[in-house]
C-alpha cells in the first residue's frame, strides 16, 4: 500500500543540515530567549528541583496562528509519538479525523487493558515454584507496552514510573517479586488518569514502594536503644515525588530569597519529623505464602509500631498521639497542597512526553491545569495530560522547528516504537524479551528497572562538554548516552530488526510490499519513525544507499527493508523526538 505522505513543514533546504563539522555554535543565540533567573545558581539548581532550565527555546518567528484543523498526517504522527508509542497510518488517520482533544478523550474513556497481574497469572507464574523467581517480570511489562490498546494510559504510566520510581533490582527479600512489580504497574495505570492525591496515597501504601523505600517494617523511635525511624521514604517523597528541594515559581523556575539564593522547601529536621508518619506500616505477607495475593494489597498499620510523637513539617502539625491513618492523611494532604507540586510534576511530564526544555510559560500553563482543572479540582491528572499534549508549544510546528526543541528518545521508547510500528508478535506467546539493561549489548534501559530511585536520568542532567551545556539547556536522556551505549544500541537493534529478540519478531508485510521503491520506503520510515523530521539530506543518503540493494529476490527485499528500518533507527534525525 502507498502511505499517505504529507510533509509540508519539512524544510526543503538545508536548514536541518549543517555541512560544517567544525561549527561550534549550532544554534544562533537570537533564536533563544534566555530566561536566566540567576546565572550564579545555574549549575547548582538544575532540574532536580524541577525548575532548573535557565534557557528555553522560543518559537521561530513569526508567531504562529492558532492550530488549523484538522492536523496533517505528519502532525498527527508527531502527536502520537508524544502521546503513544507509535504512529501507524490508521492511528494517524484517527487523530486527523477526531482532532487531538477528542482523541485524548477517547483514550481517557477506554477500559484499562489486561493487567500485568492477570497476564502473569494466566501464564502460570503464580505457581509456588515461582515464589523466589524473577521469571516473567520482563516478559509481562514488554508485552503490555507492546500490545496494550490503551496507549495513552500506558505512555503516561511509563512517564509516571520514571517519577515515582521503583526499580526491580531494589525490590528484594520479598516473595513473588514479579507480582509485586506487576501490581505496581497496574496501580500506576489505575491512577494515571485519576487524581494525584489518590495516586500519592496508593504509591505510599503499595507493597512495591513499601519494600523499595523501606516503609514496610519501619518502626517508631526507641530512645532506650537509640533507634530512629527510617527516613528514606520521608525524604524521597518530598524530593522526588512531589515538591523537590527548592521553592518554585508557578512557571517552574526557582524562587529566590532576599539574599538571591534559592529557598529550601525542607530541612533535615522536616525529614526526621515526617519520617514518624511513615512508621508502623508493613506489607501483609502471610505465613506461609501460598500465592501472590498479598502483593497487591495496601500496607497495613500496626499501631504499636507507629510513632505517636508530635511531627511538624511544611507548616503542618501532626499532634502527639494521632493515630497512624490520620497522621498519613495529614501528611499527604500537606504535601499535596504545596504550591510546588504542579510545576514540579508538570515540568517532568512535559519532559517525558514532549521536550526537555519547556518554556516557563508552558510549565505555568500545565501547572495551572494541575492546580485547577477548570472545575475547582486540584490534582486532576487528565487535566495535566491535556495541558501537556494540547499546548501550543507541544503542537505548533513553529515551536518544534527550533533547533533546541524536543528530546532524545529514550532507548526503551525506540524499541517500543519498532515493536509497535512493525507489528511485533511473540511467536510462542511467551514474550520472552529479557532484561535489556546492559548498555554494551542491549538497550541500556529496561522499564521498571531503574538503577535507583533517581530514575535512569535526572530531569536536570546537563551533558558536559556539549553545545547543549553551552546553551544552558538540560538533556535528561543524555545521561544514558556514551561511547559504549551508542554502539551497544545499534548492535542490538541490528539483530532485533532482522531477527527479533526472544521470539518476538516483526511483520514487515507493508514495507516489503513497497520495497521495490526505495523512495517510498524512505518516506514511510520518515512518517512512521520520524513523524516527518527526517532531513532531506538524510532522506537522499538513505534512498540512494537502499536503492543499491537488489530486490530481485525475497532475501534482497528483506535486506532492503531491514536496512531501511535499521538505518533510520540509528539516525540522529530519528533519535531526537521533535
Amino acid at each position, binding site marked *: 500500500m502507498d502511505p499517505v505522505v504529507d510533509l509540508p513543514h519539512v524544510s526543503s533546504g538545508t536548514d536541518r543540515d549543517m555541512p560544517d563539522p567544525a561549527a561550534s555554535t*549550532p544554534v544562533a543565540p537570537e533564536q533563544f530567549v534566555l530566561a536566566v533567573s540567576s546565572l550564579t545558581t545555574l549549575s547548582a539548581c538544575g532540574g532536580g528541583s524541577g525548575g532548573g532550565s535557565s534557557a528555553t527555546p522560543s518559537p521561530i518567528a513569526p508567531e504562529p496562528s492558532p492550530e488549523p484543523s484538522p492536523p496533517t498526517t505528519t502532525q498527527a504522527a508527531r502527536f502520537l509519538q508524544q502521546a503513544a508509542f507509535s504512529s501507524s497510518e490508521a492511528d494517524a488517520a484517527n487523530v486527523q479525523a477526531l482532532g487531538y482533544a477528542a482523541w485524548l478523550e477517547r483514550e481517557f474513556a477506554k477500559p484499562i487493558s489486561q493487567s500485568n497481574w492477570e497476564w502473569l497469572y494466566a501464564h502460570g507464574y503464580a505457581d509456588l515454584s515461582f515464589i523466589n523467581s524473577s521469571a516473567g517480570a520482563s516478559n509481562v511489562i514488554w508485552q503490555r507496552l507492546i500490545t496494550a490498546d490503551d496507549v495513552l494510559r500506558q505512555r503516561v504510566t511509563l512517564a509516571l514510573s520514571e517519577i515515582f520510581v521503583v526499580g526491580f533490582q531494589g525490590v528484594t527479600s520479598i516473595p513473588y517479586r514479579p507480582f509485586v512489580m506487576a501490581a505496581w504497574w497496574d496501580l500506576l495505570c489505575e491512577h494515571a488518569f485519576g487524581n494525584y492525591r489518590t495516586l500519592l496515597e496508593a504509591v505510599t501504601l503499595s507493597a512495591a514502594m513499601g519494600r523499595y523505600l523501606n516503609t514496610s517494617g519501619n518502626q517508631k523511635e526507641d530512645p532506650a536503644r537509640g533507634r530512629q525511624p527510617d*527516613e528514606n521514604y520521608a525524604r524521597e517523597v518530598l524530593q522526588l515525588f512531589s515538591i523537590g528541594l527548592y521553592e518554585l515559581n508557578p512557571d517552574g523556575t526557582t524562587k529566590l530569597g532576599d539574599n538571591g539564593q534559592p529557598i529550601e522547601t525542607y530541612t533535615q529536621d522536616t525529614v526526621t519529623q515526617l519520617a514518624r508518619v511513615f512508621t508502623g506500616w508493613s506489607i501483609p505477607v502471610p505465613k506461609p505464602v501460598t500465592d501472590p495475593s498479598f502483593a497487591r494489597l495496601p500496607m497495613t498499620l500496626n499501631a504499636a509500631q507507629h510513632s505517636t510523637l508530635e511531627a511538624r513539617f511544611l507548616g503542618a502539625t501532626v499532634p502527639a498521639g494521632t493515630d497512624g491513618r490520620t497522621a498519613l492523611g495529614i501528611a499527604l494532604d500537606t504535601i499535596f497542597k504545596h504550591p510546588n507540586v504542579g510545576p514540579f510534576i508538570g515540568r517532568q511530564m512535559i519532559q517525558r512526553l514532549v521536550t526537555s526544555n519547556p518554556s516557563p510559560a508552558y510549565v505555568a500553563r500545565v501547572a495551572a491545569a494541575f492546580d485547577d482543572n477548570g472545575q475547582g479540582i486540584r490534582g486532576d491528572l487528565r487535566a495535566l495530560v491535556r495541558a501537556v499534549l494540547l499546548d501550543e508549544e507541544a503542537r505548533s510546528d513553529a515551536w518544534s522547528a527550533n533547533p533546541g526543541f524536543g528530546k532524545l528518545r529514550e532507548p526503551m521508547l525506540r524499541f517500543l516504537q519498532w515493536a509497535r510500528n512493525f507489528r511485533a508478535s511473540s511467536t510462542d506467546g511467551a514474550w520472552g524479551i529479557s532484561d535489556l539493561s546492559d548498555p554494551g549489548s542491549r538497550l541500556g534501559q529496561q522499564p521498571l528497572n531503574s538503577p535507583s530511585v533517581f530514575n535512569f536520568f535526572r530531569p536536570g542532567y546537563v551533558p558536559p562538554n556539549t553545545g547543549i551545556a553551552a546553551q544552558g539547556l538540560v538533556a535528561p536522556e543524555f545521561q544514558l548516552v556514551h561511547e559504549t551505549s551508542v554502539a551497544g544500541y545499534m548492535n542490538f537493534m541490528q539483530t532485533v530488526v532482522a531477527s527479533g529478540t526472544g521470539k518476538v519478531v516483526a511483520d514487515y508485510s507493508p514495507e516489503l510490499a513497497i520495497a521495490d521503491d526505495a523512495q517510498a520506503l524512505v518516506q514511510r520510515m520518515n512518517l512512521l519513525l520520524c513523524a516527518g523530521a527526517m532531513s532531506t539530506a538524510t532522506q537522499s543518503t538513505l534512498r540512494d*544507499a537502499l536503492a543499491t*540493494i537488489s530486490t530481485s529476490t525475497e532475501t534482497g527485499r528483506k535486506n532492503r527493508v531491514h536496512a531501511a528500518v535499521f538505518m533510520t533507527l540509528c539516525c540522529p534525525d530519528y533519535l531526537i523526538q521533535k
Partner: protein
Amino acid sequence: MNIKHTTDMARRAFLRRSAALGITGAIAPWAMQLSMLGEAAAAQASGDDYKALVCIFLNGGNDYANTLIPYDSAHYGQYAGIRAGIARSQESLAATALPPSSPMADGLQLALAPEMAALMPVWNNGHLAVQLNVGPLIVPTTLAQYKARSVPLPPKLFSHNDQVSIWQSGLGEGATQGWGGRMGDLLMSSNGNSVFTCISAGGNAVFLAGDTVAQYQISTSGAIAINGINKTLFGSAVCQNALRTLITQPSAELFANEYARVTQRSIDAQAMVSTGLAGVTLQTQFNTQNSLAMQLKVVAQLIAARASLGAKRQVFLVSLGGFDLHDNLLANHPTLLGRVAEAMRAFYDATLELGVASQVTAFTASDFGRTLSSNGDGSDHGWGSHHLVMGGAVQGQRYYGLAPTIAVNGPDDVGQGRLLPTTSVDQYAATFATWMGISPSALPLVMPNIGHFAPTSLGFV
C-alpha cells in the same frame, strides 16, 4: 574533540615495553613472585613517566561505621552502644584490625569489615591508608557554625544525587565539571590522545568532565565496535558506508548534533582501544562475577596499553551501587564490602604485575557517610565519612585526619550521628592533584575552595 592517531614512536615504545614484560612474565609461579616482580619492573620502568588516579565510587552512601569499625575496647564499646541491632561483633574483627604504624593519641584502632580481609596484605605492606571523616565543605566549619548557619554550607546536604555531584564536582545536580576532569584539563597536554585522559568504566559521571576534557566511557569488555559500519550491512557495502555517514554527520539540530559527536568519538576511540588492548595480557585474576572487579580489570588493561594509547596522565572512575542500606544493613553490606575489597586487591596486584604500583593511586568516595544511629536494621543519610586510599606511592598503614567522637549528640554530630566533616573533599582532591603533578598555584583550578583549607596536601600520597 579530535583524536590524534597514535604515533609510530608510541607504538614502538609499547612493543618494547611489552617485550620486557613478556620476559619477566614468564617466571613462575606468578603469584608468589608478584610483589618482587612489581618492584623490579617498576625500577626498570623508571623512565616510564606515567601516573593514574582511580576513583572507586560507592553509589548510595557507604556506611563508614560498618566499613572501618572501632576495634579497641573503649571505642568499640561506644560504637556497639549506639548501633543496637546493626553492630558487627568485636570478635569478628580480629583478623582485619588495622594497627596504625604509630598509635593514635586516644588509642583508637579501626578494623576493616571482616569481609575486606583481602586488603590486609596491602595494609601490612604499607600501601593502604585510611582518611578519617572527609566530606564536602565550603569553609572549615564548627558544629556551632553549622547549627547557626553562620558559614556557607554545601547545598542539598543528605540528598543522594546532589551529594554525588558535590563530591565529584563541588556543585549539585546539573554540574558540568568534576575535579577528575579539571585535573585532566591541566594534564591532558602530556597525553598523545586527549580522549584517553579521563575514562569511566562505570556510567556517565560528572567527576570526569572537564572544561575541555570529555569523559570517555568504556565497557568491561573493552570498547564496543559498531557492527553495522565494520561489516557489510545486510549484505550491502554501500549501506555500510551510508550508515557511517548518517550516524556521524553534523546537524543543525542541537541534540542530534551532540549525539552524533558521541558516536564519532565512540568509533574513533574504539579502533585505538582495540589495537591497544590486543597486546595486553594480565595474569592477575579478576572475579568475573564481581562487576567492580571487572571494571577495575579493564582499567588495568588500559593502563597496560598506556603507551599504545599515548597516555601519561590518566584519571579513571569505576563504581558499585547498592550502598543505600536503610534496611538489611547487616545482611547486604558485608557482601558489597567483600566485592570492594576483592576488586581493589586484584587491581593492586595487577598494578604490581604491570610494574606500575607506585604510579597508580586508587581511592574510595561515596555520596555521603551515614548516621551512626540505627533505624532498626539500617542507617540513614549522613555527611562525613571515612575512606580508603591505596597504591604503591601511598604512605599507608596510617590514619589521616581527625578521628570523630563516636557519640550521638557529640561534638562531631549534626544529628543522629551524622558526621560534620573535619577534612574537606577539596583537601582530599588536592592531595591527589598534587601527586599527579599539578602545581600548588593551579590547585584552585581543580578545587575552587581549596584556598579556605590548610593543609592542601594531607600527606597520604
